[in-house]
């Protein structure tokens, strides 16, 4: 099987080192107003959004996104009938 023959799964990306909700929204949803795009992203990525905030004073303060995260760029697909 070739890579192009893989079934379609939910579209995602791996963030860059200093990515934030805003930077991903700007890069991926430039046609959508920033506030709406950020809100959408957060709602599709509760596994990151619901994470405890980094402590104040840390280099990541206010930004829960890690460079190893998976960030979804769309809502769950229709076949995602239940949760893991």
């Amino acid at each position, binding site marked *: 099987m070739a890579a192009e023959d*893989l079934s379609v799964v939910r579209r995602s990306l791996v963030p860059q080192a200093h990515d934030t909700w805003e930077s991903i929204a700007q890069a991926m949803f430039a046609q959508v107003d920033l506030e709406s795009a950020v809100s959408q992203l957060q709602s599709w990525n509760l596994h990151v959004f619901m994470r405890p905030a980094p402590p104040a004073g840390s280099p990541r303060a206010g930004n829960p996104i890690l460079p190893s995260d998976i960030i979804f760029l769309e809502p769950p697909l229709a076949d995602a009938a*239940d*949760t893991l």
Partner: protein
Amino acid sequence: MFDLVIENGLVVDGSGRPGYRADVGITRGRIEKIGRLSGQGRETLDASGKVVSPGFIDPHTHFDAQLLWDGYAKPALAHGITTIVPGNCSLSLAPLKAQHRNKLVGMFNQIEEMPLKAFAEGVEWNWIHFDEYLERIGEGLALNVAPLVGHSLLRLWVMDDAAMQRVATDEEITAMQELLRRCLQAGAVGLSTSFVDMDETLQPVPSRYADMREFDALASVLGEFARIFQIVPEFYDADVTIARVDQLAEISLKHGIATTFSPLFVNNDNVKSIERVMRRVDEQFARGARVWPQVQTRPIDISFSFAVPSLLFIRLPSWYHVMRFGSHEEILAAFKDEERRQAFVAEAAPLSGLWPQLVLRQVDSAANQTLVGKTLGEIARLRNTTPVEAMIDLSIEENLGAHFLAADMGHNDDDAVSALLNHPRVHVGASDGGAHILSFSTYGDTGYLLGHFVRETQQVGLEAAVKKITSDTASIWGIPERGQIEAGFVADITVFDPQKIGRGQEYSVADVPGDGCRYVRDAIGIEAVLVGGALTWIAGSGYTPATAGMVLPGAITG
């Protein structure tokens, strides 16, 4: 003449082929011949009515610290385990600079629920490099150890505190590569990382600050040695797990290595999601990638007292915070303070279905002994209160020594679990042996597979089950000359009674350094365990002094 002949057993050789009656002749630690060998052994072991199988291999454990005071990894060996893989989930005990010891102990305490006192009183920190740690545990090994290197350790070594703050520079990645190379040359079986675990401050562990450059660079070193890459994915979310499967597949294809992820749980409400994950695994295998899911056999049971933190409460911040950071006196004070108590009760309300089912499993006082074995629902009715209030009251009355059991929390649908266990891409793992010692027993998963799924429900065949925990594991993990009953192979052998084998009852035992306790199970139906041809555990007499265990795949020489 053989050193030992195991006579008259049903040889289930690990290949998956049907079992057959034969004797097994062993000389100088290896299986020399299989056939009719009666009377040809200097020693004999009668296996009439028993199964003679390869020793079981447990690929997901955290025995890293225990091996320093217990080279048998008790009671794993008595359950038929002859090879263990420690160092999972980004955490190993080496390579480790002295200034990072407290950090590592904190992470083991938080993630694997291992007592701080056990490290304080059971560990003499006299190694730094991976080969030095292997030398330490190698002094009295009764079973084989195939150790992973923890990714978080590599980051700490190279980056110090920055390991928990940022991505690595190119120079730092190169340094991690060289460090990993040295560990693999010393005998490590592969590298582990985690995408979910939190450290003792409830912040992400160092491995989670890595970017794809770093993962790719480290995987390239694994490729030089054809060693495995283990990850802990976001197992609670199918879509993220599928994305991780895709990442692992790309790494596997690019670097020519095996990869594995653990755990993979199935419950009544996520069967379709697990099917989606497995479809993706199958697709990636069809591309030529190797992405092996690990599935545990046992249902999820969690025991706890409020004397130590329990991950059962991690989604109840007020409860978890006081358990994690409060002293004994502070926890008692919090429970006795009416205002805080009501806040605890309110926070626990969304889990109202859970609390009545919890069972009081252990108390110290005579007054409450009659309540042991009852559910909190029953106790609440007797006391005219609520289950949560009863739990708090009992904890106060027992000076936090009341132990509760949350049984069958998940992964307990036999049809769904057996479907996974029968899947050709799944191997049995995720026991967490040696960890979570105050939450549940991590021993006996193989006994549960052979007793429950093979004998009782008959949803898994005997030969298929043995293959899953022997040759499949050895093959996936690159563990040489083990996992099969075959001439020339090392004589790691487990003899068990297929009519009796089981995981045994869970109970608490006080044998952890620092006066600590842990939950264990005594094996049922295991007759004998041989490691490297040496009888190492025998039913009725227990452990022998044999220490024929080895580090696998072992150091690269020359």
